């Protein structure tokens, strides 16, 4: 493949613009803090080293567990196309990631906690109390796996469904064992996505804060975010907060650099989800169904607990409260705007990044590896950008530049939402975009397609299913935690997750559970219906 793709130059500009903007924004926010701080104050004491060591260990374990569970489940779901309720299951797996953490924690506790269903069942059967406790490292790992395996599942099912049917037929025809088929057919389809997923999950677990505290059970388990919180709130030591944030960003940079050299495998992609369950042995089919059923139960129970808790709320009063209508409207509006920006930005980045990684494009050019790395880094860095620092930076920036505080608050909120969803979106879209180019570049260039024609004929049909998922993910992630704009003091401005926290903070747990139920329903509906809007011609790829 030595085609010189002259026509693709201009396509790198939007993605580079997005990446540059993200990096500039991060630099501007950190600079605001640096101006206010009297200097970096960071004692590299044993405590800090201990926190970094524990956090790295915890995040690594969480990542491995999430990947193992996610890959097994994606493999099973991809091969069991006719499993009853499959679509609903996939929507449900997606819901976990985007729910406010407190809902997930309380849901998990309903099942695995001290007075949880699992313990009650064990007690009823054996007459003994279970020796298991969700509080401790196990609880942290369970919660992280619960949240992140779902993301792995949803991403990899698409990859596996894109394996050309002829490859599968061939593998079956050669009489390969199930394991060999997985190694030779399924794994290569997943591999390009797995590294991106691993980085995203690792960084997410590295900065996990509320879960580590609430399920950790002891201050022995700790994260840098707690230290940042303490530095900003109690000590008002902006220098220390900045230094801690930089430590976090440095860890992220090292990690992204370590796994950042993603290269597309150049394998062909195909839109058809043709599976051959009948060709698999009965043992493999049984295994896959068992995995699906076990996972369905494990993932559904905490959500069912949320629904049961929520159903006790007094909905006639709750829904009639003016604050509820205000929160719901704000949440939905903010989510739509944020999701639109996420979709546009992530598509631009995915289309640009492939330019620097594909062998038939500029992969061999000097500077390409660095450009690809910078693009990965610009999106990933916000996974480890502490929310407190983001909010503080925006507040200081707003004061320097002037203008209405409300406008700045909205901008900060949308930025927080966008930067929260963007790393996931990019992780999903980059492999798809790369494979579209790997397969069709030569054809497109030889036909001399204009970029708009090419987009309609090649990228859109191949990417629309993933774009639909990214849209749903961004919508749900953007329903709104207002922590980031707390400093702006916008009391009329509220969102559903914020309303839920406010209600719990005022003893109104039944109301809070009602809001949680509404949030969960909203999220499930989004994951069921939004991808459908995008999936119209999913199988019509050439």
């Amino acid at each position: 493949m030595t085609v010189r793709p002259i026509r693709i130059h201009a396509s790198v500009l939007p993605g580079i613009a997005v990446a540059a903007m993200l990096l500039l924004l991060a630099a501007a926010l950190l600079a605001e803090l640096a101006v206010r701080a009297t200097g970096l104050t960071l004692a590299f004491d044993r405590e800090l080293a201990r926190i970094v060591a524990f956090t790295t260990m915890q995040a690594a374990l969480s990542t491995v567990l999430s990947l193992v569970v996610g890959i097994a489940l994606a493999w099973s779901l991809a091969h069991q196309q006719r499993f009853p309720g499959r679509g609903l299951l996939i929507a449900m797996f997606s819901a976990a990631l985007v729910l406010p953490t407190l809902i997930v924690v309380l849901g998990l506790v309903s099942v695995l906690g001290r007075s949880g269903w699992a313990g009650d069942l064990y007690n009823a059967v054996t007459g003994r109390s279970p020796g298991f406790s969700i509080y401790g490292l196990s609880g942290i790992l369970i919660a992280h796996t619960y949240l992140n395996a779902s993301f792995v599942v949803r991403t990899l099912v698409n990859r596996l469904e894109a394996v050309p049917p002829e490859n599968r037929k061939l593998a079956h025809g050669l009489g390969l064992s199930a394991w060999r088929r997985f190694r030779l057919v399924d794994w290569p389809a997943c591999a390009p996505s797995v590294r991106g997923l691993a980085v995203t999950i690792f960084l997410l677990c590295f900065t996990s804060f509320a879960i580590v505290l609430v399920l950790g059970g002891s201050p022995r388990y700790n994260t840098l975010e707690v230290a940042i919180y303490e530095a900003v709130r109690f000590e008002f030591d902006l220098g220390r907060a900045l230094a801690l944030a930089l430590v976090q960003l440095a860890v992220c940079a090292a990690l992204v650099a370590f796994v950042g050299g993603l290269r597309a495998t150049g394998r062909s992609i195909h839109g058809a989800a043709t599976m051959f369950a009948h060709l698999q042995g009965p043992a493999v089919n049984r295994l896959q169904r068992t995995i699906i059923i076990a996972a369905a139960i494990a993932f559904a129970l905490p959500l069912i607990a949320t629904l049961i808790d929520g159903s006790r709320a007094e909905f006639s009063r709750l829904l009639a409260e003016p604050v509820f209508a205000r929160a719901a409207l704000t949440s939905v509006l903010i989510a739509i705007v944020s999701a639109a920006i996420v979709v546009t930005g992530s598509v631009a980045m995915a289309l640009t990044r492939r330019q620097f990684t594909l062998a038939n494009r500029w992969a061999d050019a000097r500077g390409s590896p660095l450009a690809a790395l910078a693009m990965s880094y610009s999106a990933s860095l916000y996974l480890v950008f502490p929310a407190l620092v983001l909010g503080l930076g925006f507040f200081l920036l707003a004061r320097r530049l002037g203008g209405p505080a409300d406008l700045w608050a909205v901008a900060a909120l949308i930025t927080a939402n966008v930067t929260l969803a963007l790393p996931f979106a990019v992780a999903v879209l980059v492999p798809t975009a790369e494979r579209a180019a790997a397969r069709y570049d030569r054809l497109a260039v030889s036909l001399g397609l204009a970029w708009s024609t090419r987009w309609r004929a090649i990228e859109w049909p191949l990417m629309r299913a993933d774009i639909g998922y990214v849209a749903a993910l961004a919508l749900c992630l953007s329903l709104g935690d207002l922590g980031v704009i707390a400093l702006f003091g916008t009391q009329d401005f509220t969102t559903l997750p914020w309303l839920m926290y406010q209600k719990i903070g005022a003893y109104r747990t039944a109301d809070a559970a009602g809001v949680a139920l509404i949030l969960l329903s909203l999220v499930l509906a989004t994951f069921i219906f939004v991808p459908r809007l995008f999936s119209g011609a999913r199988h019509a790829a050439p």
Partner: protein
Amino acid sequence: MTWLHKTLLAAAFATTTTMAATAEGGKRELIIYTYDAFAADWGPAPGVKAEFEKVCDCELTFVTADSSIGALRKVQLEGEATPADIVLGLDTNIAEVARATGLFAEHGADLSALSVPIEWNDEVFAPFDYSYLAFVYNTEKLETVPGSFEELAALPEDVKIIIQDPRSSTPGLGLVLWVKQAYGERAGEIWRALAPRVLTVTKSWSDAYGLFLKGEAELVLSYTTSPAYHRIAESDQRFAAAMFAEGHHLQVEVAAIVKSTDQPELARQFMAFMLTDAFQDIIPTTNWTYPAIETANGLPEGFDPPVAADKALIMDGADVEANRKAWIEEWRAALSQ
């Protein structure tokens, strides 16, 4: 996704977030920074606003931060240019930090009507309510009610408590100070004895109380007034606060006038109003704390009388500031064993 793009979108949203930034009809405006729960629809703010506007010929605006510390930090960041006239909701543990910023002026209010458990003659910070930390339990589930930290530590193996992290939560910090004041040098020892009782340490009061109501632990660190909420608002009689022989950590909430206020007269009028029945009668069933004066109506039915004044433990703010880091480290080391 340009900045212009974002700004335009933000402008579209601004209509949903319009605030009472400008007073109607040229009325004077008093701006109070406070914490989230105070300004909530169900908090004291709506009642306070209605009552004060009856007498002040002005408009009262509450601006919220996530916490009282957040409100203070906001004023600090804004400096002289802050629109805030008053900051309301700081507690005694953070008041010294606030005083040291030099941003606050004398309140000029008559404090003679005050009825808080300690002598109070601060010229900058005026109290408006108070509460005591306590371990709250479900009377139907806990058999032996502990009467001290030592009894709490000696409870059976399967009795658990949920507490909050002093690095992220105000009651969490209060508990560290409570144990320190009750036991002094022995605080570390008490914490090591309590460690096996601790089910988990949460980021905030909300997380802890949510887990407690789900039945995860027998006791939770909260306030002596928490059971009153369940009794009055939910007619639920199951909850009670364990009374400790050592006494209880007292948390007094205060307000102060910001020096740079453009409404000094109005601000002083509010500070005086804060210590009248009209304001104070709103406090118990909206903030679920004790009023700072004895009002004609007294405490609502279902409210326990406050802990006796000789059992009130309160620490000097300067001491807290000087030792906070060391005491939190002592707590952390003991619980990390």
